[in-house]
């Protein structure tokens, strides 16, 4: 007999009590064939193509999920950055395209569709400018559309003009959704080194180097890692950080394998035209208790996430996750690492509440985790230039360290530091964090480009 009872039990335990799930299967759809010189025509073709391509995504994912007993939590769609699709129309607003994406997603029973995006790391074309202008209205008038803007790469440097624009876009968007706590900003990500195959919204998009249809999988499992570490601590033997890293690596291996297996099955079920892309192994928390990255850090002996030692612990965690994932699959991609979306992580919210976790510490943590300042609430009266400067700091960490970083920041209208805002569902609850009172207007208004770092000269 090649299997034993303990192995099958371990899998059941992971699924039933440790929240092992496939966080998302995301179908990437190329819209390059949908661009026309007329906005209505582009919208029509976009709608038809998306609805055709993804018509069975939900039913196939549900079928695979039922057969394996592993939940597939979200089914989502990523499309070609819309700035590229919209540009030939010559239109002065892409809001109708966003509304088209929203209708297609509704028709398909999908909660988020991402890719209302522009790539402006080196310069802004006419189409990019229209897209940036359209973001506030597009996200305020749709429920399912997510947007992302890549403002820097290690190879190109940092486009400070774009970052200055983003500060305004975010402020206007927050005001446009003021009645819902500025929730529009939860659907907008500003990136450095944006991956082309990231399956996680809001930052997902279908990169221009991708094929027609690609299925990418995002796996998670903070709960699985947490339980394994808890068992390790309770085992009674003397444990050091090398043992911890080894345990995390093993769990990451298993989680990735589950993700790849189910992802391959979903891709196969969707037919020959769909290619399996990558597994993104990211420890992505949810507001549920026991599904928290902060709790993992705390089980390592940190009294609260955000205290001294947090960056080191997070570095260990992120690296061990990547090593386990790289061993498990040859198609690891996307963001892969650990997410620290503040409002979506129950224990991280608690850490902010007691004053243990500040914006500055979060920024330091993002140097070693896989994303950046994610789901961070700041006061509603934060000036656009301060928001731009926060973005510039975060983006430079990514650009100068050859990694992805991103900012998803919400200036919550009419709220000040320490106040709470409820976003609901997976977006959770946020405590407004204070920002520096010194406004860097002069620096942000300089504009131009921060040249690419010397590490970009690799040829």
């Amino acid at each position, binding site marked *: 007999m090649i299997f034993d009872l303990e192995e*099958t*039990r*371990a*899998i059941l335990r992971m699924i039933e009590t440790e929240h092992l799930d496939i966080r998302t299967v995301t179908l990437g759809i190329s819209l390059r064939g949908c661009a026309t010189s007329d906005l209505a025509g582009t919208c029509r073709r976009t709608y038809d193509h998306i609805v*055709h391509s993804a018509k069975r995504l939900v039913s*196939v994912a549900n*079928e695979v999920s039922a057969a394996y007993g592993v939940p597939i939590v979200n089914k989502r769609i990523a499309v070609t950055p819309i700035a590229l699709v919209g540009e030939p129309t010559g239109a002065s607003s892409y809001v109708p395209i966003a509304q088209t994406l929203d209708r297609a997603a509704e028709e*398909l029973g999908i909660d988020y569709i991402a890719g209302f995006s522009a790539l402006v790391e080196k310069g802004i074309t006419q189409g990019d400018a229209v897209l940036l202008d359209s973001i506030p209205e597009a996200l305020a008038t749709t429920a399912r559309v997510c947007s992302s803007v890549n403002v820097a790469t290690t190879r190109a440097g940092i486009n400070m003009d774009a970052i200055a624009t983003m500060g305004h876009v975010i402020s206007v968007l927050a005001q446009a959704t003021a009645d819902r706590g500025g929730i529009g900003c939860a659907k907008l990500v500003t990136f450095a080194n944006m991956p082309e195959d990231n399956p996680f919204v809001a930052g997902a998009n279908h990169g221009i180097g991708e094929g027609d249809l690609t299925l990418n999988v995002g796996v998670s499992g903070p709960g699985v890692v947490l339980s394994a570490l808890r068992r390790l601590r309770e085992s009674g033997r003397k444990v050091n950080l090398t043992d911890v890293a080894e345990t995390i690596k093993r769990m990451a291996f298993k989680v990735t394998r589950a993700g790849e297996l189910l992802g391959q*099955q979903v891709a196969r079920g969707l037919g020959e035209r769909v290619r399996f892309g990558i597994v993104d192994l990211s420890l992505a928390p949810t507001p549920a208790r026991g599904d928290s990255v902060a709790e993992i850090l705390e089980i390592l002996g940190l009294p609260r996430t955000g205290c001294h030692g947090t960056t080191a612990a997070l570095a260990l965690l992120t690296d061990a996750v990547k090593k386990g994932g790289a061993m498990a699959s040859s198609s690891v991609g996307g963001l892969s690492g650990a997410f620290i979306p503040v409002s979506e992580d129950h224990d991280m919210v608690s850490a902010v509440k007691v004053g243990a976790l500040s914006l500055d510490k979060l920024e330091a943590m993002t140097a070693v985790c896989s994303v950046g300042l994610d789901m961070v609430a700041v006061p509603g009266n934060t000036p656009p230039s301060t928001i731009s400067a926060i973005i510039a700091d975060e983006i430079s960490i990514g650009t100068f360290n050859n990694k992805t970083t991103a900012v998803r920041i919400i200036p919550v209208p009419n709220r000040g530091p320490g106040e709470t805002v409820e976003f609901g569902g997976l977006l959770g609850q946020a405590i407004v964090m204070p920002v520096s009172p010194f406004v860097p207007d002069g620096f942000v208004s300089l504009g131009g480009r921060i040249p690419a770092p010397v590490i970009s000269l690799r040829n």
Partner: protein
Amino acid sequence: MARIVTHAEVAQVPDGGDLLIEPDAELTPLAQERAKARHIRVAVGTPASHEETVSIAARVAEQVLLQLGTHDEAIVSRVASEVLSALNPRQAVHKTPAGIAPHAAPVAMSDLQKARRRAILTSTGRNQKGVVAKLTTLLAELGGDILDISQTLVGDCFTMLIIVDIADMHVGFEELKSALSRLADSMGIYITLMHEDLVRSLHRV
């Protein structure tokens, strides 16, 4: 490219009505949901013209009456018009057999099934007469083929592991699982079932 039927089209059909779609058309998930909620029957077929329907009704009526031994033009036309009015208001609808699910999963699904040929069944509990017999009988009845089986007894408790080929089973994986859980409940034992490839991919390098 198959035509997509969206919820907007479903919205035009009255509650409890019929929606006729072309053989290669497909309903979106939202359209399916709305159709179900409003008790709209979805049929696949091609609409027949009014003239065709009239001539079919007349022909059938004539043949039936011939078999009954009467051939009166007046009776034939009377029967034909009765049939037509009974069909009304759906007289223009020429349906293929009812019950064709619009979302019926095509060929790709059966590939999916094949890829998951084998399942691992584990069972534990207090030892009692007939555990192996009942389990294996159930599997055999449902068309499963046992490839390997092992059992260990420790004191009063048994653990059993069965690898079963599920490729030719008459029931789906979910049904098999619920049949097993009913058996487990009736015997007071614990049974789990999962696809072999899941166990293999999580535990083997």
